[in-house]
Protein backbone atom coordinates (compact mmCIF):
# COMPACT_ATOMS: atom_id res chain seq x y z
CA UNK A 1 0.00 0.00 0.00
CA UNK A 2 2.73 2.39 1.00
CA UNK A 3 4.50 1.68 -2.28
CA UNK A 4 1.30 2.22 -4.22
CA UNK A 5 0.88 5.56 -2.51
CA UNK A 6 4.45 6.53 -3.15
CA UNK A 7 4.22 5.67 -6.83
CA UNK A 8 0.92 7.46 -7.32
CA UNK A 9 2.31 10.50 -5.54
CA UNK A 10 5.42 10.48 -7.72
CA UNK A 11 3.18 10.21 -10.77
CA UNK A 12 1.22 13.17 -9.48
CA UNK A 13 4.45 15.02 -8.84
CA UNK A 14 5.58 14.50 -12.42
CA UNK A 15 2.22 15.53 -13.76
CA UNK A 16 2.22 18.62 -11.58
CA UNK A 17 5.72 19.56 -12.66
CA UNK A 18 4.63 19.17 -16.26
CA UNK A 19 1.65 21.39 -15.64
CA UNK A 20 3.79 23.89 -13.79
CA UNK A 21 6.32 24.05 -16.57
CA UNK A 22 3.65 24.47 -19.22
CA UNK A 23 2.21 27.23 -17.11
CA UNK A 24 -1.09 25.42 -16.80
CA UNK A 25 -0.67 25.11 -13.05
CA UNK A 26 -0.81 28.39 -11.36
CA UNK A 27 -0.49 28.95 -7.66
CA UNK A 28 -1.44 32.57 -7.99
CA UNK A 29 -5.05 32.02 -7.05
CA UNK A 30 -3.90 31.05 -3.59
CA UNK A 31 -0.85 33.19 -3.22
CA UNK A 32 -2.69 36.29 -4.24
CA UNK A 33 -5.44 35.73 -1.75
CA UNK A 34 -5.07 38.45 0.88
CA UNK A 35 -5.78 36.11 3.76
CA UNK A 36 -3.21 33.56 2.63
CA UNK A 37 -0.65 34.52 5.26
CA UNK A 38 -3.26 34.62 8.02
CA UNK A 39 -4.60 31.26 6.88
CA UNK A 40 -1.18 29.66 7.15
CA UNK A 41 -0.66 31.18 10.56
CA UNK A 42 -4.02 30.02 11.88
CA UNK A 43 -3.67 26.56 10.37
CA UNK A 44 -0.29 26.02 11.97
CA UNK A 45 -1.48 27.44 15.27
CA UNK A 46 -4.64 25.36 15.38
CA UNK A 47 -2.84 22.19 14.30
CA UNK A 48 -0.13 22.50 16.93
CA UNK A 49 -2.57 23.19 19.76
CA UNK A 50 -4.96 20.44 18.68
CA UNK A 51 -2.16 17.88 18.35
CA UNK A 52 -0.74 18.75 21.77
CA UNK A 53 -4.14 18.58 23.44
CA UNK A 54 -5.01 15.34 21.70
CA UNK A 55 -1.82 13.69 22.86
CA UNK A 56 -2.04 14.88 26.45
CA UNK A 57 -5.75 14.38 26.96
CA UNK A 58 -5.90 11.28 24.77
CA UNK A 59 -3.17 9.46 26.67
CA UNK A 60 -4.63 10.20 30.09
CA UNK A 61 -8.16 9.30 29.05
CA UNK A 62 -7.10 6.23 27.05
CA UNK A 63 -5.09 4.97 30.00
CA UNK A 64 -7.98 5.52 32.37
CA UNK A 65 -10.52 3.85 30.08
CA UNK A 66 -8.30 0.82 29.57
CA UNK A 67 -8.70 0.09 33.26
CA UNK A 68 -12.19 1.31 34.04
CA UNK A 69 -15.55 0.49 32.72
CA UNK A 70 -18.99 1.79 33.35
CA UNK A 71 -22.27 2.20 31.54
CA UNK A 72 -22.28 6.00 31.60
CA UNK A 73 -18.58 6.20 30.93
CA UNK A 74 -18.99 4.27 27.70
CA UNK A 75 -22.01 6.35 26.73
CA UNK A 76 -20.16 9.61 27.23
CA UNK A 77 -17.14 8.40 25.30
CA UNK A 78 -19.35 7.71 22.34
CA UNK A 79 -21.54 10.83 22.54
CA UNK A 80 -19.20 13.24 20.69
CA UNK A 81 -18.97 10.74 17.85
CA UNK A 82 -22.66 10.08 17.64
CA UNK A 83 -24.11 13.55 18.08
CA UNK A 84 -23.81 15.12 14.63
CA UNK A 85 -21.01 17.66 14.54
CA UNK A 86 -23.24 20.06 12.73
CA UNK A 87 -25.66 20.10 15.63
CA UNK A 88 -22.83 20.78 18.07
CA UNK A 89 -21.57 23.44 15.70
CA UNK A 90 -24.91 25.19 15.65
CA UNK A 91 -25.26 25.16 19.43
CA UNK A 92 -21.65 26.11 20.04
CA UNK A 93 -21.91 29.15 17.77
CA UNK A 94 -24.91 30.30 19.75
CA UNK A 95 -23.09 29.73 23.02
CA UNK A 96 -20.12 31.73 21.83
CA UNK A 97 -22.43 34.49 20.63
CA UNK A 98 -24.10 34.70 24.01
CA UNK A 99 -20.73 34.70 25.74
CA UNK A 100 -19.81 37.54 23.44
CA UNK A 101 -16.89 35.78 21.76
CA UNK A 102 -18.21 34.92 18.33
CA UNK A 103 -15.90 34.17 15.41
CA UNK A 104 -13.10 33.54 17.86
CA UNK A 105 -10.18 31.14 17.64
CA UNK A 106 -11.34 29.55 20.88
CA UNK A 107 -14.52 28.33 19.24
CA UNK A 108 -12.60 26.84 16.33
CA UNK A 109 -10.16 25.15 18.71
CA UNK A 110 -13.00 23.73 20.77
CA UNK A 111 -14.91 22.28 17.86
CA UNK A 112 -11.77 20.83 16.28
CA UNK A 113 -10.95 19.25 19.63
CA UNK A 114 -14.43 17.77 19.87
CA UNK A 115 -14.04 16.21 16.44
CA UNK A 116 -10.56 14.79 16.96
CA UNK A 117 -10.31 13.85 20.64
CA UNK A 118 -12.71 10.86 20.58
CA UNK A 119 -10.53 9.16 17.96
CA UNK A 120 -7.32 9.80 19.87
CA UNK A 121 -8.93 8.41 22.99
CA UNK A 122 -9.97 5.24 21.15
CA UNK A 123 -6.54 4.75 19.61
CA UNK A 124 -4.70 5.17 22.90
CA UNK A 125 -7.22 3.12 24.80
CA UNK A 126 -6.92 0.14 22.46
CA UNK A 127 -3.14 0.37 22.73
CA UNK A 128 -3.22 0.50 26.53
CA UNK A 129 -5.53 -2.49 26.58
CA UNK A 130 -2.94 -4.44 24.57
CA UNK A 131 -0.20 -3.53 27.01
CA UNK A 132 0.21 -5.37 30.28
CA UNK A 133 -1.55 -3.57 33.07
CA UNK A 134 1.19 -4.55 35.50
CA UNK A 135 3.74 -2.32 33.79
CA UNK A 136 3.49 0.56 36.29
CA UNK A 137 3.65 -1.86 39.25
CA UNK A 138 6.75 -3.53 37.87
CA UNK A 139 8.53 -0.22 37.40
CA UNK A 140 7.51 0.79 40.91
CA UNK A 141 8.94 -2.51 42.18
CA UNK A 142 12.28 -1.55 40.71
CA UNK A 143 11.92 1.81 42.48
CA UNK A 144 11.63 3.61 39.16
CA UNK A 145 10.06 7.05 38.96
CA UNK A 146 7.03 8.06 36.92
CA UNK A 147 9.30 9.86 34.49
CA UNK A 148 11.24 6.65 33.94
CA UNK A 149 7.97 4.84 33.37
CA UNK A 150 6.67 7.27 30.76
CA UNK A 151 9.93 8.07 28.93
CA UNK A 152 11.58 4.68 28.83
CA UNK A 153 8.66 2.28 28.86
CA UNK A 154 5.45 3.90 27.67
CA UNK A 155 6.87 6.25 25.05
CA UNK A 156 8.60 3.51 22.97
CA UNK A 157 5.61 1.22 23.36
CA UNK A 158 3.15 3.96 22.39
CA UNK A 159 5.19 5.48 19.57
CA UNK A 160 3.10 3.77 16.90
CA UNK A 161 -0.14 5.04 18.39
CA UNK A 162 1.45 8.44 18.89
CA UNK A 163 2.18 8.69 15.19
CA UNK A 164 -1.31 7.50 14.32
CA UNK A 165 -2.90 10.04 16.61
CA UNK A 166 -0.79 12.95 15.37
CA UNK A 167 -1.47 12.12 11.73
CA UNK A 168 -5.15 11.40 12.18
CA UNK A 169 -5.69 14.53 14.23
CA UNK A 170 -3.98 16.65 11.60
CA UNK A 171 -5.91 15.07 8.76
CA UNK A 172 -9.25 15.47 10.48
CA UNK A 173 -8.47 19.02 11.49
CA UNK A 174 -7.38 19.89 7.96
CA UNK A 175 -10.55 18.36 6.55
CA UNK A 176 -12.92 20.55 8.48
CA UNK A 177 -14.35 23.13 6.16
CA UNK A 178 -17.95 23.63 7.17
CA UNK A 179 -17.48 23.89 10.89
CA UNK A 180 -14.37 26.04 10.70
CA UNK A 181 -16.02 28.42 8.29
CA UNK A 182 -19.18 28.64 10.37
CA UNK A 183 -17.67 29.03 13.80
CA UNK A 184 -14.76 31.09 12.61
CA UNK A 185 -17.25 33.19 10.75
CA UNK A 186 -14.76 34.02 8.04
CA UNK A 187 -12.53 35.79 10.53
CA UNK A 188 -10.49 32.65 11.14
CA UNK A 189 -9.24 31.53 7.75
CA UNK A 190 -7.39 28.24 7.43
CA UNK A 191 -5.83 26.51 4.49
CA UNK A 192 -8.95 24.40 4.19
CA UNK A 193 -11.41 27.28 4.22
CA UNK A 194 -9.23 28.91 1.60
CA UNK A 195 -8.83 25.87 -0.62
CA UNK A 196 -12.25 24.30 -0.39
CA UNK A 197 -14.12 26.71 -2.70
CA UNK A 198 -11.47 25.95 -5.31
CA UNK A 199 -12.01 22.25 -4.86
CA UNK A 200 -15.58 22.79 -5.90
CA UNK A 201 -14.56 24.66 -9.02
CA UNK A 202 -15.08 23.20 -12.45
CA UNK A 203 -11.61 24.21 -13.57
CA UNK A 204 -9.68 20.98 -13.51
CA UNK A 205 -6.29 22.61 -13.16
CA UNK A 206 -7.32 24.66 -10.18
CA UNK A 207 -8.80 21.61 -8.48
CA UNK A 208 -5.69 19.63 -9.26
CA UNK A 209 -3.44 22.32 -7.82
CA UNK A 210 -5.49 22.57 -4.66
CA UNK A 211 -5.51 18.79 -4.19
CA UNK A 212 -1.80 18.62 -4.89
CA UNK A 213 -1.09 21.28 -2.29
CA UNK A 214 -3.19 19.53 0.34
CA UNK A 215 -1.66 16.12 -0.28
CA UNK A 216 1.86 17.50 -0.29
CA UNK A 217 1.33 19.32 2.96
CA UNK A 218 -0.10 16.25 4.66
CA UNK A 219 2.51 13.92 3.18
CA UNK A 220 5.43 16.13 4.12
CA UNK A 221 4.01 16.51 7.60
CA UNK A 222 3.60 12.75 8.01
CA UNK A 223 7.19 12.13 6.95
CA UNK A 224 8.43 14.84 9.30
CA UNK A 225 6.51 13.51 12.29
CA UNK A 226 7.62 9.94 11.63
CA UNK A 227 11.24 11.09 11.43
CA UNK A 228 10.96 13.03 14.69
CA UNK A 229 9.40 10.11 16.51
CA UNK A 230 12.05 7.71 15.20
CA UNK A 231 14.84 10.01 16.28
CA UNK A 232 13.34 10.42 19.75
CA UNK A 233 12.96 6.66 20.05
CA UNK A 234 16.60 6.15 19.12
CA UNK A 235 17.68 8.69 21.70
CA UNK A 236 15.60 7.02 24.42
CA UNK A 237 16.85 3.55 23.51
CA UNK A 238 20.45 4.68 23.61
CA UNK A 239 19.92 5.97 27.12
CA UNK A 240 18.47 2.67 28.29
Amino acid at each position, binding site marked *: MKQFLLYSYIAMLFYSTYLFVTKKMDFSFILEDPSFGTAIYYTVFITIIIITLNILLGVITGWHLAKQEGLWLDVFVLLPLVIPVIAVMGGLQLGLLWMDIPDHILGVLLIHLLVTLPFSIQIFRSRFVEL*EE*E*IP*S*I*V*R*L*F*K*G*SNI*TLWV*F*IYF*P*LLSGSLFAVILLTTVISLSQYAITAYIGGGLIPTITTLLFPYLQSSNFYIVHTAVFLLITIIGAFAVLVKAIILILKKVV*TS*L*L
Partner: protein
Amino acid sequence: MTVLGKSGSGKSTLLQIIAEMETVDSGELQKDPNTTVAYITQKPYLFNHMTVLQNIAFPLKCQGLKKQERYQVARSWVEKVELHGLENRYPYELSGGQQQRVSIARAFVYQPNVLLMDEPFANLDVKLSRQLQHLIFNEMKLRNVSGVFVTHNYEETKMYADQTVLLQDGRLSKMSEEDVELYFNEGIQQNGEIHSVAKCSLTNAMRKTSIPIVVEKEVHLYGVDFYVIQLPNGQKQFIKKVDELDLNDPLYLDVKGN
Protein backbone atom coordinates in the same frame (compact mmCIF):
# COMPACT_ATOMS: atom_id res chain seq x y z
CA MET B 1 8.56 -19.72 53.38
CA THR B 2 6.19 -21.67 51.20
CA VAL B 3 2.57 -20.63 51.02
CA LEU B 4 0.06 -23.31 50.22
CA GLY B 5 -3.60 -22.82 49.55
CA LYS B 6 -6.49 -23.68 47.27
CA SER B 7 -6.93 -21.83 43.98
CA GLY B 8 -8.59 -18.54 44.67
CA SER B 9 -7.52 -18.43 48.30
CA GLY B 10 -5.58 -15.25 47.64
CA LYS B 11 -1.98 -16.40 47.45
CA SER B 12 -1.13 -14.27 44.43
CA THR B 13 -2.86 -11.30 45.98
CA LEU B 14 -0.82 -11.79 49.14
CA LEU B 15 2.41 -11.60 47.19
CA GLN B 16 1.23 -8.60 45.23
CA ILE B 17 0.42 -6.79 48.45
CA ILE B 18 3.87 -7.52 49.84
CA ALA B 19 5.37 -6.25 46.60
CA GLU B 20 3.14 -3.21 46.91
CA MET B 21 1.69 -3.93 43.49
CA GLU B 22 -1.78 -4.05 45.00
CA THR B 23 -3.31 -1.72 47.51
CA VAL B 24 -4.65 -2.90 50.83
CA ASP B 25 -8.36 -2.41 51.53
CA SER B 26 -7.95 -2.36 55.28
CA GLY B 27 -5.13 -2.84 57.72
CA GLU B 28 -1.53 -2.05 56.91
CA LEU B 29 1.61 -3.59 55.57
CA GLN B 30 4.50 -3.23 57.96
CA LYS B 31 7.71 -3.16 56.06
CA ASP B 32 11.19 -1.82 56.63
CA PRO B 33 11.49 0.96 54.05
CA ASN B 34 14.98 -0.24 53.19
CA THR B 35 13.72 -3.61 52.05
CA THR B 36 14.07 -4.30 48.35
CA VAL B 37 11.60 -6.77 46.97
CA ALA B 38 11.79 -8.81 43.79
CA TYR B 39 8.89 -10.64 42.17
CA ILE B 40 8.84 -13.55 39.76
CA THR B 41 5.70 -15.11 38.44
CA GLN B 42 4.56 -17.48 35.69
CA LYS B 43 4.49 -14.71 33.13
CA PRO B 44 7.93 -13.15 32.75
CA TYR B 45 6.58 -9.60 32.17
CA LEU B 46 9.55 -8.58 30.09
CA PHE B 47 9.53 -5.35 28.13
CA ASN B 48 9.14 -6.14 24.45
CA HIS B 49 10.91 -3.06 23.18
CA MET B 50 14.10 -3.87 25.12
CA THR B 51 16.72 -6.47 24.45
CA VAL B 52 17.59 -9.16 26.99
CA LEU B 53 20.49 -7.13 28.28
CA GLN B 54 18.44 -3.94 28.50
CA ASN B 55 15.68 -5.78 30.35
CA ILE B 56 18.11 -7.14 32.90
CA ALA B 57 19.84 -3.79 33.36
CA PHE B 58 16.61 -1.85 33.67
CA PRO B 59 16.10 -2.15 37.45
CA LEU B 60 19.59 -0.76 37.93
CA LYS B 61 18.71 2.16 35.70
CA CYS B 62 15.67 2.83 37.86
CA GLN B 63 18.01 2.98 40.82
CA GLY B 64 20.31 5.45 39.15
CA LEU B 65 23.38 3.40 38.30
CA LYS B 66 25.58 4.66 35.50
CA LYS B 67 25.28 2.95 32.16
CA GLN B 68 28.69 1.27 32.19
CA GLU B 69 28.23 -0.10 35.71
CA ARG B 70 24.78 -1.48 35.15
CA TYR B 71 25.71 -3.24 31.92
CA GLN B 72 28.70 -4.80 33.63
CA VAL B 73 26.45 -6.25 36.32
CA ALA B 74 23.82 -7.23 33.75
CA ARG B 75 26.38 -9.09 31.66
CA SER B 76 27.56 -11.11 34.65
CA TRP B 77 23.97 -12.16 35.24
CA VAL B 78 23.51 -13.13 31.62
CA GLU B 79 26.35 -15.57 32.13
CA LYS B 80 24.91 -16.87 35.37
CA VAL B 81 21.56 -17.70 33.80
CA GLU B 82 23.32 -19.25 30.81
CA LEU B 83 21.94 -16.89 28.20
CA HIS B 84 25.30 -15.96 26.75
CA GLY B 85 24.93 -15.05 23.08
CA LEU B 86 21.32 -13.98 23.44
CA GLU B 87 21.95 -10.56 24.97
CA ASN B 88 20.71 -8.63 21.97
CA ARG B 89 17.64 -10.71 21.34
CA TYR B 90 14.17 -9.43 22.06
CA PRO B 91 11.79 -11.27 24.39
CA TYR B 92 9.52 -12.46 21.60
CA GLU B 93 12.50 -14.20 20.02
CA LEU B 94 13.07 -16.33 23.12
CA SER B 95 11.46 -19.51 24.34
CA GLY B 96 9.39 -19.56 27.53
CA GLY B 97 12.24 -21.02 29.53
CA GLN B 98 14.69 -18.43 28.23
CA GLN B 99 12.28 -15.63 29.04
CA GLN B 100 11.92 -16.95 32.56
CA ARG B 101 15.71 -16.96 32.91
CA VAL B 102 15.78 -13.31 31.92
CA SER B 103 13.14 -12.51 34.48
CA ILE B 104 15.13 -14.37 37.14
CA ALA B 105 18.30 -12.45 36.26
CA ARG B 106 16.32 -9.23 36.33
CA ALA B 107 14.94 -10.10 39.75
CA PHE B 108 18.35 -10.73 41.28
CA VAL B 109 20.28 -7.99 39.52
CA TYR B 110 19.28 -5.25 41.95
CA GLN B 111 20.16 -7.32 45.01
CA PRO B 112 16.77 -7.75 46.63
CA ASN B 113 16.36 -8.71 50.28
CA VAL B 114 13.17 -10.61 49.59
CA LEU B 115 12.22 -12.68 46.58
CA LEU B 116 8.55 -13.37 45.97
CA MET B 117 7.77 -16.28 43.69
CA ASP B 118 4.29 -17.00 42.40
CA GLU B 119 4.39 -20.46 40.81
CA PRO B 120 7.17 -19.37 38.46
CA PHE B 121 7.77 -22.87 37.16
CA ALA B 122 4.17 -23.80 36.48
CA ASN B 123 4.38 -23.41 32.69
CA LEU B 124 7.75 -25.06 32.24
CA ASP B 125 8.69 -28.65 31.62
CA VAL B 126 10.00 -30.65 34.55
CA LYS B 127 13.69 -30.66 33.64
CA LEU B 128 13.85 -26.94 32.96
CA SER B 129 11.81 -26.29 36.05
CA ARG B 130 14.36 -28.17 38.18
CA GLN B 131 17.26 -26.32 36.59
CA LEU B 132 15.73 -22.96 37.32
CA GLN B 133 14.80 -23.97 40.85
CA HIS B 134 18.42 -24.86 41.59
CA LEU B 135 19.53 -21.57 40.09
CA ILE B 136 17.17 -19.50 42.16
CA PHE B 137 17.57 -21.24 45.48
CA ASN B 138 21.35 -21.36 45.19
CA GLU B 139 21.49 -17.66 44.53
CA MET B 140 19.16 -17.03 47.44
CA LYS B 141 21.44 -18.97 49.75
CA LEU B 142 24.54 -17.21 48.43
CA ARG B 143 23.10 -13.77 48.83
CA ASN B 144 21.10 -14.40 51.97
CA VAL B 145 17.81 -13.55 50.30
CA SER B 146 14.55 -14.44 52.03
CA GLY B 147 11.81 -15.85 49.93
CA VAL B 148 8.09 -16.32 49.87
CA PHE B 149 7.22 -19.13 47.52
CA VAL B 150 3.75 -19.95 46.27
CA THR B 151 3.51 -23.38 44.74
CA HIS B 152 1.18 -26.27 44.11
CA ASN B 153 4.04 -28.69 43.81
CA TYR B 154 4.71 -31.30 46.48
CA GLU B 155 8.39 -31.70 45.60
CA GLU B 156 9.13 -27.98 45.57
CA THR B 157 7.47 -27.54 48.94
CA LYS B 158 9.42 -30.36 50.51
CA MET B 159 12.73 -29.47 48.96
CA TYR B 160 12.99 -25.77 49.51
CA ALA B 161 10.82 -24.68 52.36
CA ASP B 162 12.13 -23.86 55.80
CA GLN B 163 8.59 -23.07 56.83
CA THR B 164 5.27 -23.89 55.27
CA VAL B 165 2.08 -21.94 55.84
CA LEU B 166 -1.47 -22.41 54.71
CA LEU B 167 -3.64 -19.56 53.45
CA GLN B 168 -7.26 -20.43 54.08
CA ASP B 169 -10.30 -18.19 54.53
CA GLY B 170 -8.00 -15.21 54.55
CA ARG B 171 -5.84 -16.43 57.41
CA LEU B 172 -2.31 -17.77 57.47
CA SER B 173 -1.54 -20.76 59.68
CA LYS B 174 1.64 -22.72 60.23
CA MET B 175 1.70 -26.24 58.86
CA SER B 176 3.40 -29.25 60.40
CA GLU B 177 4.94 -32.07 58.35
CA GLU B 178 1.80 -34.07 58.75
CA ASP B 179 -0.35 -31.13 57.69
CA VAL B 180 1.72 -30.83 54.52
CA GLU B 181 1.38 -34.55 53.92
CA LEU B 182 -2.36 -34.41 54.22
CA TYR B 183 -2.50 -31.31 52.04
CA PHE B 184 -0.84 -33.04 49.10
CA ASN B 185 -2.04 -36.57 49.61
CA GLU B 186 -5.55 -37.69 50.29
CA GLY B 187 -4.77 -39.44 53.50
CA ILE B 188 -6.29 -42.71 54.58
CA GLN B 189 -9.76 -42.66 56.10
CA GLN B 190 -10.53 -45.04 58.86
CA ASN B 191 -13.35 -44.89 61.38
CA GLY B 192 -14.02 -41.31 60.50
CA GLU B 193 -10.43 -40.22 61.04
CA ILE B 194 -7.87 -39.24 58.43
CA HIS B 195 -4.36 -40.57 58.77
CA SER B 196 -1.37 -39.57 56.70
CA VAL B 197 0.29 -42.25 54.60
CA ALA B 198 3.53 -41.66 56.45
CA LYS B 199 2.00 -43.17 59.53
CA CYS B 200 0.83 -46.33 57.76
CA SER B 201 2.55 -49.61 57.05
CA LEU B 202 1.86 -52.77 55.13
CA THR B 203 1.33 -56.02 56.98
CA ASN B 204 -0.07 -59.45 56.46
CA ALA B 205 -1.55 -59.39 59.95
CA MET B 206 -5.06 -58.10 60.49
CA ARG B 207 -5.45 -55.71 63.38
CA LYS B 208 -8.19 -53.42 64.61
CA THR B 209 -6.54 -50.55 62.79
CA SER B 210 -6.12 -52.36 59.46
CA ILE B 211 -7.73 -51.82 56.10
CA PRO B 212 -7.67 -54.60 53.49
CA ILE B 213 -5.79 -53.56 50.35
CA VAL B 214 -4.62 -54.94 47.06
CA VAL B 215 -1.16 -54.41 45.59
CA GLU B 216 -1.44 -53.35 41.96
CA LYS B 217 2.16 -53.00 40.97
CA GLU B 218 5.65 -52.20 42.06
CA VAL B 219 7.30 -48.93 41.05
CA HIS B 220 10.63 -47.24 41.51
CA LEU B 221 10.56 -43.62 42.72
CA TYR B 222 13.79 -41.71 43.33
CA GLY B 223 15.67 -44.99 43.60
CA VAL B 224 13.35 -46.40 46.25
CA ASP B 225 10.87 -49.25 45.75
CA PHE B 226 7.20 -48.51 46.25
CA TYR B 227 4.00 -50.41 45.83
CA VAL B 228 0.91 -48.92 44.24
CA ILE B 229 -1.90 -50.15 46.45
CA GLN B 230 -5.64 -49.86 46.07
CA LEU B 231 -7.97 -49.35 48.97
CA PRO B 232 -11.55 -50.62 49.18
CA ASN B 233 -12.96 -47.18 48.34
CA GLY B 234 -11.02 -47.16 45.06
CA GLN B 235 -8.30 -44.81 46.31
CA LYS B 236 -4.78 -45.51 45.10
CA GLN B 237 -1.63 -44.79 47.10
CA PHE B 238 2.11 -45.15 46.95
CA ILE B 239 3.49 -47.01 49.93
CA LYS B 240 7.08 -47.99 50.59
CA LYS B 241 7.91 -51.59 49.82
CA VAL B 242 8.43 -53.84 52.79
CA ASP B 243 10.58 -56.92 52.17
CA GLU B 244 9.02 -59.05 54.94
CA LEU B 245 5.69 -59.04 53.14
CA ASP B 246 4.18 -62.14 51.63
CA LEU B 247 2.24 -61.04 48.56
CA ASN B 248 0.34 -64.31 48.37
CA ASP B 249 -1.33 -63.78 51.72
CA PRO B 250 -4.05 -61.20 52.35
CA LEU B 251 -2.60 -57.71 52.69
CA TYR B 252 -3.60 -54.92 55.06
CA LEU B 253 -2.74 -51.31 55.60
CA ASP B 254 -2.23 -50.62 59.27
CA VAL B 255 -2.99 -46.99 59.97
CA LYS B 256 -1.26 -46.89 63.28
CA GLY B 257 1.69 -48.93 62.03
CA ASN B 258 4.35 -46.35 62.93
